[in-house]
């Protein structure tokens, strides 16, 4: 777990993530891995037993994980969403905004770069899953 970067205060889930197919049938499982291209909406009916969702990022430009994370957050999921794979530092800001809150990158991230990327944009133009207040709201109070 040493190389997982977490933005959560609870204890990490140690249970290995099973495939989405297996998870749906395996009633005692609580950690699931969704590969890019799998439909995250399949988890919604069993969301109450999910504690960890691992999103596979095969190539960093594969942006499906952003939608997958938001769909889960919009469905009310509050457990951990971990991005695993080709996670580049420049993605983390957007990933955080979409509700991804832990990172298991293939190649280690420089923490200073991560912090710089996360703090660079003080405001955002639109709503997402992170509760940031959009600029239009700041303008109109």
């Amino acid at each position, binding site marked *: 777990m040493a190389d997982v970067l977490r933005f959560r205060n609870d204890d990490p889930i140690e249970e290995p993530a099973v495939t989405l197919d297996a998870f749906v049938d395996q009633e005692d499982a609580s950690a699931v891995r969704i590969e890019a291209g799998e439909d995250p909406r399949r988890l919604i009916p069993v969301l109450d037993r999910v504690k960890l969702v691992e999103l596979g990022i095969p190539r960093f430009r594969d*942006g499906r994980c952003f939608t997958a994370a938001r769909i889960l957050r919009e469905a009310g999921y509050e457990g951990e969403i971990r991005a695993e794979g080709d996670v580049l530092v420049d993605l983390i800001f957007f990933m955080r905004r979409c509700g991804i809150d832990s990172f298991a990158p293939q190649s280690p991230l420089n923490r200073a770069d991560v912090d710089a*990327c996360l703090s660079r*944009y003080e405001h955002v133009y639109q709503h997402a899953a992170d509760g940031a207040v959009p600029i239009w709201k700041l*303008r109109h109070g």
Partner: protein
Amino acid sequence: MYKYDQYDQAMVDARVEDFRDQVRRRIAGDMNDDQFKPLRLKNGLYLQLHAYMLRVAIPYGTLNSRQLRKLAEIARKYDRGYGHFTTRQNLQYHWIKLEDAPDILAELATVEMHAIQTSGESIRNISADQYAGAAADEICDPRPWAELLRQATSFHPEFSYLPRKFKICVISSPADRAALRWHDCALRIVRNEAGEEGFEVYAGGGMGRTPFIAYKIRDFCPAAQIFSYIQAILRVWNLHARRDNIHKQRMKILVHDLGEEEFRRQVEEAFQHFLTLDTDFPQAEYDRIAAYFTPPPFETGLPDDIDRSDPDFALWVDQQVIAHKTPGYAIANISLKPIGGIGGDATAEQMEVVADLAERYSFDDVRVTHAQNLVLPHVRKQDLYAVWQALHEAGLADANLDLVTDVIACPGLDYCTLANARSIPVAQKIQRRFAEMERQLDLGELKIKISGCINACGHHHAGHIGILGVDRKGTENYQLLLGGSGAEDTTQAKITGPGFDEDGVVDAVERAIERYRELRDPGERFIDTYRRVGLDAFKEAIYG
């Protein structure tokens, strides 16, 4: 015109630092070029044949004189003294050094400009009708919506790593001057029976190797909900698009694969969901933005006639000047298509001349058209002669709007790494062949569009006459297409038959045009004759 507040300014300033840091990490070797490439593309920086190319966003094709002067200054300081206006109303510099790019962005930020999302797999700069706010036929100015959507789609966290690029266009008139239905997402502002404003939405258009004309996905989306609707479209595409073949990842392919009905069904479902998330911008924000686009203080009681005693000026007026919605004013088009020049190019000096004219005669307002020309949208008719004289002196007074020499050509093999063939020299040869003014006027509206490869940046699918450069056993070869349109009567051009070499295709264009002259009814445009008689009648003439 829209003005940044402290939030908008902070955003572009942060982007400059962001990019500066990315360039630093690349130069330091912390990133390989594979990783750097998508990042630089998000900021409009391409690696071309000879140098980097930087594409600067011109949101909805609107500039003020300060911005245009800055573009001129950058051209002089960091490039070779000119810039190139593109078919998406942006500006490109073709001779940029990587290490200068962050400084250029910093300079742009001082005049409220940027290069955010001008390339790469992102939501691109939003295009609009170049006559917005001036056209007699618009129901409202589409730019407040374009600006609202610019903000809503800038750094959108869910849609910043899309399957491919995504282009939005907004117009608000029945006439289409912006190639609306060739966009991924095309919006036309309309009013419903109750008089409420909303959008007619088209989806799935695009040129490239597999051209599709966008289909109407919704007759009416209430204006206040348009961002939800666009997000719904994007989400369906982002979830389902292929990721295994770059050539099959545009949204048009998904629309085609799923079928229009099924795509619409899924979008509607996602739309209903987005409406519950409260992501749409409120009326107060629209009103705040719209206040920047209130009409300039037009004078009343101005003379509405034009002194046409100078025949060269009269010719220019007939070709370049369009009716304005306000009496006494006119829309003046500035040609960037001099015979034998490079279409869309403007020197720093020319940009400054146009900036001066805009400031003096057009309420500080300049537009860029998708046909790569410029516009002074609000000129008093009594000032047209002075404007024309200044343009004439700057080599900008060609009178060829929408005529045979107003050719759109992509950069082609002279600049572009993807090209099969050169585009610019073909455009120049066609211009020279038809340079004689009388001949141009006799032929009337005739849109020729040339692309140097199948990616179709020169819009050949939408040309009344299209030319496509292909590679034939290692030599440059050109296919001829007929019957395309990027106007309200959108059609896709068809290939006539075997290709030609560079001179051969110019001859073939001439044969097609001569056939049109034989077949046309009085007053009939090329495209209308083609539609009436069909391709075969032209094929005969072209191939004998």
